[in-house]
């Protein structure tokens, strides 16, 4: 069976070790929530998976392609959505999508129709010719999300994707992500809104002290934490991370 993401023995240190011997596996169609306290190394892990940061040791493969040895082939299958929107204030959403589609070498006719569809779906159509400099945080986030979707990636790396979105937009984005997962795309997501992880993720990993503290479905985590079935992910998360620090 093809695996969407395989991470083995991943290590990264800056002034001190951030990630130590991390193993991760994500299957196609899976939504994996990577949680952890501030400074646990979530963003560092995502940046290494996206090919933006070279690990000190370990291997990363996306759909069988080694991210370190063949970064271009691996990146062609991925979309990276960081917590700070990667956007150009002086471009309009349509121009931004032209640029992103060009970077991922999407066939122009397909890119144009996909851009129209995404702008319409995300409510950006009336603003498609306006420069992003006047956009709210939510509109910027939606523009960036459209950019992440335009090349129909098989693997999404999403760092706090719902930041700044209103309730309706957040619901829409969640629906889009679930639809992509149902179509076979794999998604790794970090969020501090634990309710989102609880509802969206098929599996959850809790990162702490440079490695995975716990991993599994929500029910498995509840069991691991010794919590009853009515316990929220917040209860489980706080219990696991606090006991880990004791």
């Amino acid at each position, binding site marked *: 069976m093809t695996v969407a993401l395989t991470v083995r023995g991943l290590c990264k240190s800056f002034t001190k070790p951030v990630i130590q011997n991390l193993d991760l596996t994500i299957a196609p169609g899976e939504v994996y929530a990577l949680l952890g306290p501030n400074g646990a190394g979530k963003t560092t892990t995502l940046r290494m998976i996206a090919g933006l940061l070279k690990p000190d040791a370990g291997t990363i493969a996306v759909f069988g392609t080694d991210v370190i040895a063949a970064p271009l082939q691996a990146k062609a299958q991925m979309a990276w959505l*960081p917590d700070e929107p990667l956007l150009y204030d002086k471009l309009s959403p349509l121009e931004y999508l032209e640029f992103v589609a*060009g970077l991922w070498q999407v066939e122009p006719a397909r890119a144009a129709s996909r851009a129209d569809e995404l702008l319409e779906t995300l409510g950006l159509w009336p603003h498609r010719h306006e420069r992003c400099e006047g956009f709210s945080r939510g509109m910027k986030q939606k523009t960036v999300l459209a950019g992440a979707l335009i090349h129909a990636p098989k693997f999404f790396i999403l760092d706090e994707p719902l930041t700044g979105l209103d309730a309706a937009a957040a619901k829409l984005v969640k629906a889009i992500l679930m639809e992509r997962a149902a179509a076979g795309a794999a998604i790794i997501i970090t969020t501090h809104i634990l309710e989102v992880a609880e509802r969206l993720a098929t599996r959850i990993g809790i990162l702490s002290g440079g490695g995975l503290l716990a991993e599994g479905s929500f029910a498995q985590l509840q069991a691991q934490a010794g919590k009853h079935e009515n316990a929220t992910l917040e209860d489980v998360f706080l219990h696991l991370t606090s006991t880990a620090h004791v």
Partner: protein
Amino acid sequence: MKMPRWKMYFYTSPAPHMFKPTSFSWLFAHEINLLWRNSILIRTSRHVIIPVIFVGVVFQAVALGIAYFLRGQNFSLPVMIVAANINLIFLFGLMLSRAMTSAIDVLYARGDADFLLASPIPPVRILAVRMLGVTASVAAPWMLLTGVLANAFAIFGKPQALAAYIMIPMEAAVATSLAFLLVVVLVSKLGPRQARRVSHSLALVVGVVIFALGQAPHYIPASSLRGLWLALMPNDQNINAPIWLPARAMLGQAIPVLIICTLCTGFFLAVLFGRAKQYADGTISAASYAGDSPPQRDNGHFRQAPLAATMLKNLRILLRFPGLVTQTVYRSLTLVPVLMILTGRVAIGTGPEVVVPLLVFLTGQLALFFVSIITGGDQAPELLASAPVLAATGRKAAYAAAGYASLVVMALPVIGVLLRQGGHLPALLACMAGCGLSNLILGQRLPIPLYRPAFGKTQTGTVLGLILGVSASSVWALLAWLLVVPQLPHL
């Protein structure tokens, strides 16, 4: 490792903790602290301090030379007054332009304003500090330039020249106050983008007028010029008229200095207290939502090639840089003497050969400017890094877009050289290519400072790039001159 004491003087800044929190001094120290840390000298490269000190020493040496040369000259008071007044007027135009751009940032950069206004500090204090900050940033470069001259004249027996140290900040304070008044009106009528364009255009107009006046002897008969000069001068009857007060203050006369200081401070305070309430209640920032011009229409042009897509993005960023036209025209003023020489209106130095080094120099400066806009305006470099493209794609696209823009500006003068001095064309093209390429590479790595950093962000650009870029352009221009004029003229 502990920093040596001498280095601390370069890298430390006024410490806000020296003052009582929320006091005016505390807030102003904080403002200066941020200005210092964001300044191009400190943020970009520590090594830049040495070249900047070197340039400062050279400036002071040149100023000493000028003052030494002029020490025996005794200009009449009317001549001195007219000269001082003209300088003050041009300086004011340039200061106003810079102050307007800064005022737009202060009044409408929401992150910064909201952060401060959300604190329990009185809004009038916040606005006062921001206005003083703008005054300081507007005055600083002119203080440096006129300061070296004032020092030199003081050394050679004219201590009244030191009045420049009072007059320049006073003029900056008036320019800042006027800018805060004008900007509110302009933004409410035109929107922030157009208002910014107006401020850049003002600088352009002042620059062009200064240049045109400098060239006046070439197109105005000497007798008319002398008549004009005499008409501008004060005479015995009107020398005490208020119109000459700023000039007399600049020349160090005590009473005019006192009057000017009082008037400038009064104007500054009137604007401050007049605007503070509107600033606090959001009336000023709300006005910015009323007007910007309708967005430009642009149909989708999707491209499958990453290089083409990135180049198109770069050209769009370049075209939308607020000061593109004004700063390009500024740099291209070099073309005016070129045009005059090529059309035979003026004969300078070795004749049409002078055109070649001028064009080479301009090519280098334009390439440096354009590539710096593209590099400094790249807000999302990680997008390219996360895409399946080679790392060199971004660099190549920046070179291509900036090179293309430089070619567009330089095409006509090159055709002019082809028509007038076809034999110089190979040397011209070779040196233009070399100069352009070297400055493209330099500017992509060390972009010159063009963008004001957003709230909480650091400045892109370094003055080191500017110094090295001008140096590289000069070297290439010298090489071009040596190629077209192999025998050096007798100096």
